[in-house]
């Protein structure tokens, strides 16, 4: 008989102890579940032999749900209760949702995330996503004949903290043990890299149903190191359907459509788009509920011309990712194409032209993400085999910052930092005896807080009362391997832990997150000028408060004449604060500085004497 075997964590247990783990691609249009069987990643099919589950959930009056193909079939008949592309609403407020007026849903605004009123009641996007995950979980447990020990769920690399948290919540709601949130392009890189024993720099271009990601990875001796990532969290195949739909409406000169007809024509547009990948033209014919009949033909050339701007929108983020990775096009050894939308010939062509090479398509672009997630899940669950000594190092896609005075965002953790990452920042109190302060955490690249995505407001309570500026509150921002942020705070001089209360923010507009990087460039110049101005205004206000305070406390140290001069300069400074020229404010501050220099020196002397007087002799 064999010796007693002890397996350490991270090593493969005996075969009968194998833990059942799956990778789930929770997509905008379709979702999949995959697992590793006998060392090979496979997609698990449903009873009809289908791997792709349409990410569509229909709610019935009795609370029952239909998920997938069944919901898809009836979507044009019951658009209000049939939720498609719910991924676009994850972690988003009502004002973030684009084309609200064209959506058939009955939206309900609620703190943090938009909700939908259905026949079965009000549902949050997290609940809708959980229905999809539950269906996949049931499929996997049936196929694997056992309970799952864990799952890896993929998210777009460009998802922010709120969207990631919502995805993880959905997994938990579906009864899954979420081992990790894995970035979709990284998952694809694992599946591709391990399959091809690839080494060198690769780009993963992932155009899904509703999101676009570009990741640049370095593959080296079993380490997958993401060097930079970029993207657009609201750009995908859906937008191509929408363009074609609008073109059809215009071409057929249709009157405003009902929700049912809108959904019907969108489905027809999508089918035509897919048909055009392999054919020169497609016919869109459908009888509408209005009695009209649509019958138009679109050529591949026409379709490509109308959607070329969407393709072009992916190239900017791609160049930026390369620049952030400090690489040139020539350094990239291969470009892996992921997502059903990359099947379109003009997408392939544009990517090929940018990278000056033929993109790699040897893995099914619909399945490669789920396969990579399955490989990762298998290893994370503890089924690490002999050849599984690889490691994944991913990054945070968008900078994390905090709001400082004047509505400016100060970056705490820059984008593309390797995870996990932590940064500590020290804050102080503004007023004597202050016991609470509020910290606003934002995500994005722009300089003004109002242009970044608001993640949360933290209120710190229980700061020991001290003189203004004496308390030193150390706030630590920790981002874990899932890309999720946690904040803790501690007052450094007394060691008191300040309590942290989190208020989830109402999100900003979707357009903002997608535009953030682009705008930060367009507006960089204006931002900088505004920033300088605000800094001077804040500095001026601080100066006025400090000098007035000093004049009250140590009035005996200034002569009446000196006081008159100081007050005159203070008044002059106050007047400059409302002007728009930072140089004027700056020179007024300098004048106040000059006339208070001697006074400040005398105050300092007094303070030193006071401090010495308070100490015991032996400590000197």
């Amino acid at each position, binding site marked *: 008989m064999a010796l007693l075997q002890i397996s*350490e*964590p*991270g090593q493969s247990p005996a075969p009968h102890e194998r*833990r059942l783990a799956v990778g789930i691609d929770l997509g905008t249009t379709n979702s999949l579940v995959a697992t590793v069987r006998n060392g090979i990643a496979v997609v698990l099919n449903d009873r009809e032999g289908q791997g792709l589950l349409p990410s569509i959930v229909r709610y019935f009056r009795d609370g029952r749900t239909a998920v997938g193909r069944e919901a898809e079939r009836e979507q044009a008949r019951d658009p209000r209760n049939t939720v498609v592309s719910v991924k676009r609403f994850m972690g988003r407020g009502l004002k973030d949702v684009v084309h609200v007026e064209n959506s058939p849903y009955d939206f309900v605004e609620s703190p943090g995330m938009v909700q939908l009123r259905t026949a079965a009641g009000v549902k949050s996007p997290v609940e809708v996503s959980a229905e999809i995950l539950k269906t996949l979980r049931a499929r996997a447990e049936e196929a694997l004949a056992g309970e799952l*020990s*864990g799952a890896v769920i993929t998210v777009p690399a460009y998802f922010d903290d709120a969207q990631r948290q919502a995805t993880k919540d959905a997994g938990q709601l579906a009864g899954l043990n979420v*081992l*990790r949130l894995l970035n979709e392009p990284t998952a694809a890189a694992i599946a591709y890299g391990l399959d091809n024993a690839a080494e060198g720099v690769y780009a993963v271009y992932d155009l899904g149903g509703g999101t676009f990601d570009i990741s640049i990875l370095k593959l*080296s*001796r079993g*380490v997958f190191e993401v060097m930079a990532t970029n993207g657009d969290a609201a750009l995908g195949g859906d937008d191509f359907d929408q363009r074609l739909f609008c073109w059809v409406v215009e071409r057929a000169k249709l009157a405003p459509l009902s929700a049912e007809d809108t959904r019907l024509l969108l489905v027809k547009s999508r089918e035509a788009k897919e048909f055009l990948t392999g054919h020169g033209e497609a016919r869109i014919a459908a009888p509408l509920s209005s009695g009209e009949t649509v019958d138009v033909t679109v050529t591949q050339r026409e379709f490509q011309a109308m959607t070329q701007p969407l393709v072009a929108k992916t190239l*900017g983020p791609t*160049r*930026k990712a390369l*620049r952030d990775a400090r690489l040139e096009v020539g350094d990239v050894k291969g470009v892996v194409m992921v997502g059903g939308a990359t099947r379109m010939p003009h997408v392939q062509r544009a990517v090929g032209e940018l990278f000056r090479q033929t993109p790699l398509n040897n893995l099914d672009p619909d399945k490669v993400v789920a396969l990579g997630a399955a490989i*990762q899940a298998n*290893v*994370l*669950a*503890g089924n690490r085999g002999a050849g599984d*000594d690889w*490691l*994944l*190092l991913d990054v945070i896609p968008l900078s994390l910052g905090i709001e400082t005075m004047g509505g400016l965002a100060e970056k705490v953790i820059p984008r593309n*930092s*390797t*995870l*996990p*990452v*932590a940064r500590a920042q020290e804050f102080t109190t503004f007023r004597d005896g202050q016991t609470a302060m509020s910290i606003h955490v934002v995500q994005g690249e722009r300089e003004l807080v109002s242009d970044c995505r608001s993640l949360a407001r933290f209120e710190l309570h229980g700061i020991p009362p001290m003189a203004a500026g004496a308390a030193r509150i150390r706030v630590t921002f*920790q981002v*874990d*391997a899932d890309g999720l942020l946690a904040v803790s705070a501690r007052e450094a001089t007394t060691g008191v832990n300040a309590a942290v209360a989190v208020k989830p923010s109402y999100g900003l507009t979707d357009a903002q997150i997608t535009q953030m990087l*682009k705008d930060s*460039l*367009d507006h*960089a110049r204006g931002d900088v000028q505004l920033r300088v101005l605000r800094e001077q205004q804040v500095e001026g206000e601080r100066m006025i408060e400090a000098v007035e305070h000093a004049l009250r406390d140590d009035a005996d140290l200034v002569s009446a004449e000196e006081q008159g001069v100081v007050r005159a300069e203070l008044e002059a400074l106050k007047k400059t604060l409302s002007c728009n020229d930072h140089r004027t404010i700056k020179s007024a501050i300098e004048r106040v500085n000059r006339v208070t220099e001697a006074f400040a020196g005398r105050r300092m002397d007094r303070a030193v004497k006071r401090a010495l007087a308070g100490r015991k002799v032996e400590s000197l």
Partner: protein
Amino acid sequence: MRLRRELQRLNLDENHFQLFGVPARFELDTGALEERYRELQREVHPDRFAAASQAEQRISMQLATRVNEAYQTLKSPLRRAGYLLLLNGVDPEFETNTAMPPEFLADQMEKREALEAAAAAGDREGMIAFSSELRLEQDALLARIRRQLDTSDWAEAAATLRQLKFLEKLGEDIAAAEERMES
């Protein structure tokens, strides 16, 4: 427990150089640094502990965070130089000390004006030439700071580092201007 062993070996009081087992000087074998980084992360990364206890997961995250921080500091010549200064008790005073040699400042001012002119004119060639000139200047300063750090001339090294910071900012502005041109 593997993590415990790793914890003992990875003394958290070690400085970044000790953590990576490389000599505490400016000159650095980047290949060895990268290699050691991968070795360390292979041991401590949270992916290795996804099925472990919560306590172990937390320790693993802290260690991996620490390794990342050390690696980023040592990998960048500027951050490495600043870190060496701090280890030797010298504050580089990026925020407070803005004293620069007048000729350096005059040169910087000229460069900024040239950059703005090239950006306004959409002069791509000019920008590229500008970047390579800047790189040469940075290389010269890096060679200088290496000498200063090797001979423990901390105050001089700090002054050189402040100039390098200036050039780094200029480099970022060039990159931003290039991006604006593209979009």
